[in-house]
């Protein structure tokens, strides 16, 4: 009697967890039941831990779990996670403006396929400032952007694999080969370090002053995140938001919709220093930036004290393999990095690039592919 009641309770609780976004498979529910069998059910603390340790496996899900546990087992009120309506509306508008070709956007003419673009037209598109593009031109850019984003910085892994041009002897294969020759290693076998993609962290400014470019750069980010493991993307304005999970889906439109909702700071001022501080404190501590190529996309307009930005840039540069700053304003030949924020950050930047058109994104990709650490003191 009591047994079936518990089973029902736990199974329903599993469903509650799935609703709040914690992935709970049948295996976990089974483990939860087995664990409740092993602890004293009259001690609420033990029941709590038994369920938590079997049903949750990520630190960032603990809060959700606690909320659900309080609501389900302690009959507390459920505190819903609310998104503000105006944020969603704004995000929807942005996504509509940037991606869908319906509505007021011009219908693409037949023969306007990006591949069939004439060379000169292609060239024009590459040079055109993102801020001046029509939605339809922008659509064409997407295809080109995906190709650019696939290029990733690489590094030598510590793991070795068989390689005829390797630098270490592969003993296991050597012994086997030596069997045939009475113990003489006639035919050597080698192993070499494998080359693997280097970690890439992109921090993208999505504040008001970047509006014209953040559309394009979010698309670029989507392609970059889609290019494989070891890529992390963040958006920032007045504070930092992790975009990786939102950008990891296949469908760029849905991903962009979610990313813009998550980047709650859209359209407000920029606090680069405190956003970087948050990145360093939360993600830097988990060594996300260690050995990574970090790309910051921002115009460098800092609302707050540039001193904070300077200190946080120093921290970031110490942990990272290389820091690249992409500033769309640099596309203007008359631009001078005199704004307080930009000037304070520059000493810690390995490469300073524009990001205002397709050509400059190509340049960024080329830099990422062959980047070398700055040999500064």
């Amino acid at each position: 009697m009591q047994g079936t009641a518990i089973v029902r309770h736990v199974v329903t609780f599993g469903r509650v967890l799935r609703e709040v976004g914690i992935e709970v498979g049948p295996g976990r529910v089974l483990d939860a039941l087995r664990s409740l069998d092993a602890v004293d059910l009259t001690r609420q603390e033990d029941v709590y831990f038994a369920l938590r340790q079997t049903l949750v496996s990520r630190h960032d899900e603990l809060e959700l779990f606690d909320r659900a546990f309080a609501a389900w087992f302690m009959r507390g009120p459920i505190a819903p996670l609310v998104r503000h309506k105006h944020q969603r509306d704004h995000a929807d508008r942005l996504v509509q403006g940037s991606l869908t070709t319906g509505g007021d956007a011009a219908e693409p003419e037949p023969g306007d396929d990006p591949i069939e673009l004439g060379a000169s037209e292609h060239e024009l598109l590459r040079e055109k400032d993102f801020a001046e593009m029509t939605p339809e031109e922008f659509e064409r850019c997407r295809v080109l952007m995906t190709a650019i984003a696939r290029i990733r910085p690489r590094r030598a892994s510590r793991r070795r694999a068989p390689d005829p041009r390797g630098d270490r002897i592969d003993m296991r294969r050597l012994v086997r080969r030596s069997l045939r020759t009475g113990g003489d290693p006639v035919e050597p076998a080698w192993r070499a370090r494998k080359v693997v993609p280097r970690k890439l962290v992109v921090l993208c400014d999505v504040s008001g002053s970047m509006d014209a470019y953040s559309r394009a750069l979010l698309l670029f980010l989507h392609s970059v995140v889609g290019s494989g493991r070891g890529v992390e993307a963040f958006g920032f304005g007045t504070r930092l938001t992790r975009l990786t999970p939102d950008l990891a889906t296949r469908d760029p439109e849905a991903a962009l919709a979610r990313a813009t909702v998550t980047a709650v700071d859209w359209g407000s001022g920029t606090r680069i220093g405190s956003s970087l501080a948050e990145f360093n404190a939360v993600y830097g501590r988990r060594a996300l930036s260690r050995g990574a190529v970090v790309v910051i996309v921002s115009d460098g307009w800092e609302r707050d004290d540039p001193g904070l930005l300077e200190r946080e840039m120093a921290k970031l540069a110490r942990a990272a393999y290389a820091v690249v700053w992409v500033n769309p304003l640099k596309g203007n030949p008359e631009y001078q990095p005199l704004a307080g924020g930009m000037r304070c950050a520059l000493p810690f930047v390995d490469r300073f690039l524009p990001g205002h058109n397709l050509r400059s994104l190509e340049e960024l990709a080329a830099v990422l592919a062959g980047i070398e650490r700055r040999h500064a003191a």
Partner: protein
Amino acid sequence: MYPPAVMFRTIDELEEALRKADYLPDRGLSTALFLSLALEKPLLLEGEAGVGKTEAAKALATALSARLIRLQCYEGLDVSHAVYEWNYPRQLLHIRAAQEGTVSEDELFGPEFLIRRPLLEAIDSDEQVVLLIDEVDRADEEFEAFLLEILSDFQITIPELGTIKARRKPAVVLTSNRTRELHDALKRRALFHWIGHPSLEREVEIVRLRVPGISQRLAEEAAAFVRGLRGLDLAKPPGVAETIDWGQALAALGREEIDAEVVEQTLGSVLKYREDIEAVRDETLVSLIEEARATAKR
């Protein structure tokens, strides 16, 4: 014959045994270790550096009177360092020595040429074993996939020898500092427990247990001061391990209380980054000391 495994019928019994091993767990951790034994599932411990993840596994081994086998993970860790390796020099010598008849592969890849590494030791053991896989987040994903295989079936296949199955499942503790998220498949195989910083009372208790001769008063002030540091925005907030180190330093200096002078002298055993030490200079330091002393007085 080896003695049968030590069994704990309740969480309280295990907690008592861990205390005897000089480890003071909170209820959550004792529950996690207890369930890991009861369900025979690996336990994944995550938490900030210095909260006692590795110590927990060591204490469990002591409590169980089991042998502790530790595998320290690092990038590039592979089968030959984690599981087994063939003794190549011996194999080559053997081929040479047998110049008369030919040597067969079976002979060459037999048990006497096998070098056993931690994972094979743990699986192929008759004793009770606690297998500590430390800082698994440092190993790469290829190794994680391999680990998954061992932890789901508790068996290891050596192509030349066949499959070796555990006669007695080892208790497995994995630790991670979360430098990256582990693969879901691995997490599904394991129970998960997040170790946070201990409460003030528990930390005082831990310091008194680990630093013999320290006064209650000094232990309280040290723990409260470190707790204050954790509230600041530091690159590396100190863990319990640092509180213990610091307690030892203070006790060695023959202190009964903390003051600005002694804190300045010994801050290096609590904070490990120059920028953190600079961040708590002067007023911050003075107010932290005052708060710590006020907390201890109560």
